[in-house]
């Protein structure tokens, strides 16, 4: 009936069947994206979610290519090939520890695309567009270009191209606010006077500069939070493009991405017990390096891989707490071998996952999953914290802040109030790390000086490998 009505309508409204098909494809595409995120909520349906997203994107592309505006396919084909050639290796050859950088880089690409489309749209039709469309283009261009350079900076800091240290100078916030204010003012002026096109390059330049300046004062270790935020901006700029082109699919996909970025950065801030402003203006990492000097005076107990192996072997239950150190030394596969060796001996081994262990939300989960550790062995902080007192050994591998008891007790500590894993409640605590240096937050950790704590000094991967060798009877000396 409705179909009949549709066909009858066509004669009247002048819309062709192709246009109806495109509308329909876009609607299904939007549903695909929604289902994609919905299914991602659980590991058992997550891969179906990726499929739904792919179908959504495919429909969006097919629908768009059928639009009557598109008359020239050559450049599109070339660009698609180049894009695919860039995207595939970026996905398949990347190490899992480099995921943060990759994400930052791809936000830069996505934001660049939004910025370029907005720019071209303005130059082509600026004088005939409605104020609404111009406002939308303004949002699109500003969000796009600032996310472009901002993400590149984040990428550089994470990859080590640029110093990870926050660069601070007096009046910094004032300068940043000034630049941002100027670019917003130009954008506003252009909406009212779209013929003043000569101002547009200034808008672009100022926004690009603002993106750089925005990231300069933020420490490398805060980059994950910033990346999540930039993800949100990239989504909002796609949404703005949707407002400008009156395309609902763009609005929906952009809004989904925008909220996702915002939620993730809020979750990260909460788990680190810090505020947004503190992340964005705090220069947090600056304090980090300086504090760890006076530590070595207090005494710690250090034991050898042989002793470690023996103690682990003789325990009934072990909770492994992985942290950033496991990620940088890529120790997850050796940890897997340790897990196998201990499990074979009847030791109950579980993993305690802190929400911000490592440098990405869910970082540890991905690494351990990569090493084929079943995800029902990975226990969330809230669930496992009550188990430590009944546990023989808490084995901390390259984690530091997430097991620092001063977060519970010391009101002056920068991490005070951050929820932590109660490793100190276990019968024995073992900590694998290279030396006595501090973690991300730069604070001393009393856990290392407790009577029941053994320090296992060494690179996480090498040390665990030694322990595994001991356990399998092949001694290091052979």
């Amino acid at each position, binding site marked *: 009936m409705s179909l009949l009505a549709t066909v009858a309508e066509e004669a009247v409204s002048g819309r062709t069947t192709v246009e109806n098909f495109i509308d329909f494809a876009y609607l299904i595409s939007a549903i695909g*994206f*929604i289902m994609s*995120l919905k299914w991602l*909520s*659980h*590991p*058992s349906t*997550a891969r179906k979610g*990726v499929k739904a997203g792919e179908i959504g*994107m495919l429909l*969006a592309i097919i629908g768009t290519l059928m639009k009557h*505006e598109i*008359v*020239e396919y050559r*450049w*599109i084909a*070339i*660009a*698609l090939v*180049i*894009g695919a050639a860039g*995207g*595939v290796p*970026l*996905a*398949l050859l990347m190490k*899992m520890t480099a995921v943060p950088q990759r*994400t930052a880089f*791809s936000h830069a690409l*996505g934001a660049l*695309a*939004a910025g*370029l*489309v907005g720019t071209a749209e303005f*130059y*082509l039709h600026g004088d005939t567009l409605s104020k*609404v469309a111009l406002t939308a283009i303004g949002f699109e261009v500003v969000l796009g270009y600032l996310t472009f350079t901002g993400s590149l900076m984040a990428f550089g800091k994470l990859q080590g191209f640029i110093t990870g240290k926050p660069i601070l100078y007096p009046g910094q916030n004032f300068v940043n606010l000034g630049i941002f204010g100027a670019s917003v003012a130009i954008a506003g002026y252009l909406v009212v006077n779209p013929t003043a096109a000569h101002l547009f390059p200034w808008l672009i330049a100022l926004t690009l500069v603002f993106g750089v300046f925005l990231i300069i004062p933020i420490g490398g270790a805060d980059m994950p939070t910033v990346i999540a935020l930039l*993800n949100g901006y*990239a989504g909002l700029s*796609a949404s703005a*493009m949707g*407002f400008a082109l009156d395309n*609902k699919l763009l609005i*929906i996909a952009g809004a*989904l*991405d*925008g*909220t*996702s970025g915002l*939620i993730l950065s809020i979750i990260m801030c909460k788990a680190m017990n810090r505020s947004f402003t503190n992340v964005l203006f705090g220069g947090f990492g600056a304090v980090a390096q300086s504090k760890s000097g006076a530590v070595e005076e207090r005494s710690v107990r250090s034991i050898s891989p042989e002793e470690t192996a023996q103690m682990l072997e003789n325990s009934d239950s072990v909770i492994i707490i992985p942290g950033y150190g496991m990620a940088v030394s890529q120790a997850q596969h050796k940890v897997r071998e340790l897990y196998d060796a201990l499990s074979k001996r009847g030791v109950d081994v579980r993993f305690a*996952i802190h929400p911000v262990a490592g440098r990405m*939300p*869910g*970082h540890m*989960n*991905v690494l351990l*999953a990569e090493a084929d550790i*079943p*995800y*029902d062995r990975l226990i969330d902080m809230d669930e496992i914290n009550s188990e430590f007192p009944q546990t023989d050994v808490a084995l901390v591998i390259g984690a530091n802040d997430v097991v620092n008891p001063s977060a519970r007790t010391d009101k002056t500590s920068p991490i005070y109030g951050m929820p932590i894993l109660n490793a100190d409640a276990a019968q024995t605590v073992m900590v694998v790390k290279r030396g006595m240096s501090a973690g991300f937050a730069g604070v001393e950790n009393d856990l290392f000086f407790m009577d029941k704590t053994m320090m296992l000094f060494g690179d996480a991967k090498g040390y665990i490998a030694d322990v595994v060798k001991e356990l399998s009877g092949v001694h290091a000396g052979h």
Partner: protein
Amino acid sequence: MDDSLTNSLYVFVLAAFLGYQVISRVSVLLHTPLMSLTNAIAAISLVGSLILAGSAQAPYATVMGAVAVAASFANVVGGFLITDRMLKMFKTREPAK
């Protein structure tokens, strides 16, 4: 506020609420894949890029469009692939050896 703006605002508000509801249900376990998946979905700006690159309005616009297509398509391909690659690693049971 013209009609198309009103409509767009409704769609945006609903999608933002829906995003909030759906995403806050994603388990912490999957937050890294979530970032790369939304990254791929945000590459929907490909739609605008394709129209620009294919509508032959001006040579400079076509070039900008083509660059935008390449950039966002790299995200589409890369984002979905790496998400799937990560998710493949999550298993409940011990893999048979």
